[in-house]
């Protein structure tokens, strides 16, 4: 883009900048409000509803939510599911993506089609539930991982990425007596680190945010991940109907406590986000849909 120095061009740029700044504000303000609210006292919250920067700093809300085991347990479940799930998903996804990226694999087109088709049509909630049930996965942590182990979309992105690696490299490694696994782990994966990092983080965020699988497959509230607990705590006190209660005997939590739980459930995402975004800013994510 060449600078446009005319009056009209400058006015245009100024208006555009102002609007975008507003949009950025709308994006962050709700979150700032919640973070600020979680670090202040209930009294301060009641007196001054428009908290954006706490006048009175306090950790009361956090002390309260960590006073029972409930949150720790849910965090533990979420961290475990995220760690194990991400490693497992990446393992099977990259193996499949590499196999399908090789043009000399017979049946490649058919397998590709079968994968893409699942993006357009699926059995739906109930039949999937019945399959999970038949496999005996109900009420197991595996039910939060296995049914969504591979995202067709992520697999296709990775496959396209692998396909863009010059074939000559693989050829010469093969001539040197490298096995297919050797090629994958010694050549292809090291060359694909940005894509691997990005897809891993996609999986991690998805696992961390697991909610639907948990309400479908887990009957036992002791196994709840953080997202399900978050909803219980927030909904419990907002006059909505809820079906089960927390095991901590609590009065309806006030605003500051709800905000603290929201912050706790969001922190891990905010921690990985900076590492994530430098990759997709480069467009690493844009494998085309045409597998």
């Amino acid at each position: 883009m060449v600078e446009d120095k005319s009056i009209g061009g400058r006015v245009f740029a100024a208006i555009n900048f102002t609007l975008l700044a507003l949009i950025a504000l709308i994006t962050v303000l709700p979150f700032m409000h919640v973070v600020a609210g979680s670090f202040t006292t209930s009294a301060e919250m009641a007196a001054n509803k428009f908290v954006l920067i706490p006048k009175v700093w306090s950790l009361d809300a956090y002390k309260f939510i960590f006073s029972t085991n409930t949150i720790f347990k849910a965090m533990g479940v979420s961290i475990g599911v995220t760690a194990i799930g991400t490693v497992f998903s990446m393992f099977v996804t990259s193996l499949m993506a590499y196999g399908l990226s090789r043009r000399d694999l017979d049946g490649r087109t058919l397998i590709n089609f079968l994968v893409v088709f699942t993006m357009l049509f699926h059995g739906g909630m109930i039949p999937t539930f019945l399959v999970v049930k038949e496999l005996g996965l109900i009420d197991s942590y595996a039910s939060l991982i296995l049914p969504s182990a591979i995202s067709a979309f992520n697999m296709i992105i990775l496959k396209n990425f692998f396909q863009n690696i010059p074939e000559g490299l693989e050829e010469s490694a093969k001539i040197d007596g490298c096995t297919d696994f050797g090629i994958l782990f010694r050549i292809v994966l090291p060359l694909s680190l940005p894509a691997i990092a990005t897809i891993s983080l996609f999986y991690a965020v998805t696992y961390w945010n697991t909610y639907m699988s948990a309400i479908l497959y887990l009957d036992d509230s002791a196994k709840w991940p953080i997202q399900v607990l978050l909803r219980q705590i927030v909904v419990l006190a907002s006059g909505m109907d809820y079906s089960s209660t927390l095991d901590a005997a609590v009065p309806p939590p006030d605003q500051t406590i709800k905000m603290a739980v929201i912050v706790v459930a969001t922190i891990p995402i905010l921690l990985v986000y900076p590492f994530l975004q430098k990759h997709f800013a480069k467009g690493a994510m844009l494998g085309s849909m045409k597998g």
Partner: protein
Amino acid sequence: MQEVAVQPSAAPQPQRKRGKNSSELKKRLWRNKWLYVMVTPGILYFIIFKYLPMYGLIISFQDYKPYQGISGSDWVGMEHFNRLFTEPDFLNILMNTLILFGLNIVIYFPIPIILALMLNELRGTFFKRFFQTLVYLPHFMSWVIVVSISFVMVTMDGGIINELLVFFGFEKVNFLLNPSWFRPMYIIQVIWREAGWGTIIYLASIAAIDPGLYEAARMDGAGRLKQIWHITLPSIRGVIITLFILKIGSVLDLGFEHVYLLLNSMNREVAEIIDTYVYTAGLRQGQFSYSTAIGFFKSIIGLIMVMSVNKLSKKMGEEGVY
């Protein structure tokens, strides 16, 4: 860190010599045995968790009893589908689903395009980066977090929105329970969470436009807006159409989570959509066959929509999705 460029999928390379006889094929299969080992876990996953449930759709033609299984349950033909179309409830739910879909198409869909154009007009890489980083962020929050943030903001007892209303002399509004506020809340949350992330693909395709085109337009005296209208938009038309087709395909797939989180006993008449109804009827009331029939109906409609919009766009000389 190597630069990752957006590359169109590579042109099909000349196939290696394909053996014509079976011994050649056998040799090739044997040579690639490890590749087959690699794709096996993935294929198993798709068979078990994607294709078995598709097979499971046949219970919508049965009176499925969990302890009798698919083989032991009685066939009832189209009974559940007939019930579907005669149930007054269902029409209401279908309408709710279609209305939310309409909001998605009419209100949400253009927003990432406009936002991408605005971001693209920014001078200076720093600000561009900065704004992009900010607006992508909400996409990584789960629906639970997004809905929870809304809850604490709009609740009657001390939510910031209601306090603002009071501050400016209005009455408090019960956003959460009032049915007429459900749809606005739904679409505002969709926009807040997804609009920024939705710009990624558009920005990438704008970045790929030949700068010479803009040069030429400037020579001809086109201002910023004219350049956007005559060069940028036509250049990304293909991407817009592709994403539009995919959006249409998700016609009835609005995402169970988001709506389920907003659903309560007071707003059920407007907030119950096909997905939430399937959950309630199927898993809460044990009507497995009936709810599967509903889900089946939904998936079929979605598939038909994708195929027809795809055909239509090809007829109009655009590329399709497949």
